[in-house]
Each structure stands twice: as structure tokens, then as C-alpha cells.
């Protein structure tokens, strides 16, 4: 899905995030924690809708998660969410679950960044 360059890039674009938070690292960290705290519930909800086959709901949830990830400058998660949104109406459940699995792995990386603290992220 992603190129090797993209994979090697930090999962959170620190500069972009801090810029969007108007230069406030505390604000960026607070919002990143909020993202981490709520993302698992979002993924669970998305997984349920995938398993239930509710395609419009999958697309809608994925679209929203894409927006949140873009706001938080987490491009790889946003890209996965965009793919899930696009494929919601066409791809089989197994493929959609695979995309969700990748999102969960990326989410783990985001959590590590959040726990490390943005100030320590180069």
C-alpha cells in the first residue's frame, strides 16, 4: 500500500501537527492523546460495521477517521482510511479487515510517539 519511503517516515508529521496547533506543543500532545484514546473505539466500530456488511456506514466512519488523521498529521493512517472508504462498497470483508489491521498497527506506532512525547520526536 505504502512506498518504502513513506513507511520509513515518522508516523506523525510532527512539524505539520505543531503548525496546525498554532505552535503549541502542549496542545498538540493533548490532541494526540485524545486521538490515541479514541482511535481503538473507532477501529472497533469500523470492524463491527465491516463484519455486518453495512457498507455506507463503513465508508462514513472511514471518511471521518481519515479527516481526524489528516488533522493530526498522521498521513499513513489517513491513507489507510481513505482506502477503506474507497473500497467499502466493492471489496470483500477479508480485504477490508486487512486494511483495518494495518490501521491498528499504525495506531500502535502513534501510541508510541504519543507516549514518547512530541518534544522528544525528531
Amino acid at each position, binding site marked *: 500500500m505504502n512506498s518504502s519511503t513513506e513507511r520509513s517516515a515518522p508516523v506523525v508529521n510532527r512539524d505539520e501537527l505543531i*503548525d*496546525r*496547533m*498554532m505552535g*503549541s506543543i502542549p*496542545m498538540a500532545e493533548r*490532541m494526540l492523546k*485524545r*486521538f490515541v484514546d*479514541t482511535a481503538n473505539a473507532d477501529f472497533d466500530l469500523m470492524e463491527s460495521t465491516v463484519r455486518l456488511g453495512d457498507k455506507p456506514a463503513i465508508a*462514513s466512519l472511514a*471518511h*471521518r477517521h*481519515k*479527516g*481526524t488523521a*489528516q*488533522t*493530526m*498529521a498522521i498521513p499513513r493512517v489517513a491513507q489507510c482510511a481513505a482506502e477503506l472508504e474507497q473500497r467499502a462498497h466493492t471489496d470483500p470483508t477479508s480485504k477490508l479487515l486487512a486494511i483495518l489491521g494495518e490501521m491498528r498497527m499504525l495506531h500502535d506506532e502513534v501510541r508510541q510517539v504519543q507516549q514518547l512525547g512530541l518534544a522528544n520526536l525528531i
Partner: protein
Amino acid sequence: MNKQASPIQILVVDDDPIAAETLSHALSQFGYSSTIALNGMDALQYVRSGKYRIVISDVEMPEMNGIDLCREIRRRGSCGYTYVILLTGRSDTASVVKGLDAGADDYIAKPFSPSEMQMRIRAGERILMLESRDLMIFALAKLADSRDHDTGSHLDRIREYCRLLSLELATWPEYQNKIDGIYIQSIYETSPLHDIGKVGIPDRILLKPGRLTEAEFSIMTQHAKIGGDTLQAVAEAHPEAVFLQMAYEIAMTHHERWDGAGYPNGLAGEDIPLCGRIVAIADVYDALTSHRVYKPAYNHQKAVDIISEGSGTHFDPNLVRAFLKLESDFKEIKKSMNDTPEKEDSEFMPMFRCKDVPAATAQTPQSV
């Protein structure tokens, strides 16, 4: 970054709390206070309060999406204009067109760039300022007019008549390079100022229930010059405010006559600015069809006949032709915007077959 507090309150509408809070934080850094609504229905309630002049809304939301919210805002209207910016991840042409068609003023792709957002909001503020300017002009004109038209919709009708005449003239070849959209909007905004000079006329004359003496009438006619001089001074101090030039010309020349027998400067023909000639017809029609203490409101046809007779003497013949083409629309405006009879005053009478004014100015009807 501009941290100067802005009086404008912004409503942020997004079902994603993280996106909403991030935007709200950026707005606070730019000096705006904001409120977050997490869905369209809540947003509509906030908008109804009249407190929010700018709405920044996500498009995809449950229950009521941003497009429908925008349509509702436009459908319901409010006391002031609400500037709507749609903020969404869908920035393809079809989505943009759909949003603008619903009444959105601007469209920004997610994720937003803070500096771009600030500039877009400033553009919105400029639009809202124009509306505020219009309201301020009208309020000032109303204030001046209230001394002798305290119950009337005189000014509301005047600007409608002026817009109507200007729209018609704009379709005539000889006026196409003179009258454009800006001209029409300007005359709509500034024509209510035509009598603002009446603030300088003493009450004993302005509110006199009977006929004016020649001396009183002479003082009364000063209102055109008083208003014109005042607006000219402001226009010269603020040359960037082009509409003030028109306001000045209207106040100064709306009592001039095509044959040169008007006041204050005795201008004739095309030496009288077009805007002054337009307001002259609008003002006289409204005076003729309105109640005065010394006369009932004339019926529409009588007013049409009088104006028609004044073609080439009192009024610009072209404008009389335009008026005659539009006379049924004038009648409709008068009918739809009529109100209780205006308070008694001396407007119109001295120029209308009044024995104690000079013959040159008493031959045809005119408001004062």
C-alpha cells in the same frame, strides 16, 4: 499572527471533536471566539440565536450534513448575513459546486492550513463589513428622516425605486457603460441619504404643519446643500470610499431640475449627475403618492400623469420614459411597502402650486 480580539463570533460545526477543537484553538489564536456544535441540528439552533456571523462547517455529518445546514441557514434568513465556509475532505469540483449552490460562501479542503483559514475568514469579515456599512448608512438616514417621517417607509421605497430605474437603464445602450452592478448597489445603499441635510433645518420649519413662507422655504431648500457639503467633506477625506461620492451627488442634486430651475445650484440637463436625476423621480413619485397634512395621497395614475408632464422640464426625458415603462412596478412597491400615513410635514407642498414661492420653482410638483 493577529491576536487582536475580533468582535465576530464563529460557529464551528464538525462531528469530529478533535477536528472541531483543533480549529477552535486556531481561531482563538487569531483572536476569534468560537463555539463548537457537533452536528447540524445543534448548529442551526446556535445560528438562530443571531450571535454567529461566520459558520465554518464540515460537510459530512450524521443527521444534517453541512450542505443541508447551509441550505437551512439561507432558507430561514436572519437579521444579518451569515457567512458560511464549508470545510471538507471532498474538494473535487462537483462537491465544491454542490456546496456553493447550497449557499456556501467559501470552501476549504481538509486538513486546513491555519494561515489560509485566517485569510479566508478575513475575506468573510470584509463581506460582513460591507453589510454593516449598508446598515449603518440606512440607520443614519432613518435617523435624519425620522424628524419628519417618523412612521413612514419612505426611505425603503426610495431605494427600491432607484434600484428599479437603474436596472432598467442598465439595459439601454446609452447607459451600459455608466450603470453596472456596483452603480446599482451604490445607489441602493446611498439614495436613502438624499435628505440627510434636513438635520440642519430648524424644527419650526421642518415640522411646520402649514405652508412655508418664502423665507422659510428658502431655509428649507438649504437641506440639499447642507447634506451635499457634509457628504462631500467625508468623501474627500476618504477617497477610497467611492460610494460616498455618489452619496454626495445625490444629496446635492436631487432637487435640481432638467430645465435648470431647481436648487441649490441651478444645474441643467446632463450637468446634473445621473444618480441625482434618478433620485429626483423616485422622491417625487413617493411624495405624490404619500399622505400630507395639506393633501391626501394622490393615486398612482395622478402621480404618473404629473411626472409625465414634467418630462423635459422637471425631469430627464429618458428617465421619465424609463419610469413610464416601469410605472406598474412603482405602484407595486408603493403598495407592498406602504404603511400608516406619514406624520404631517411641509414636504412637497411649497413646490406644489404654493402661492408664496417664486413662480419658477412652483410650476411643477416636487418634494422638498
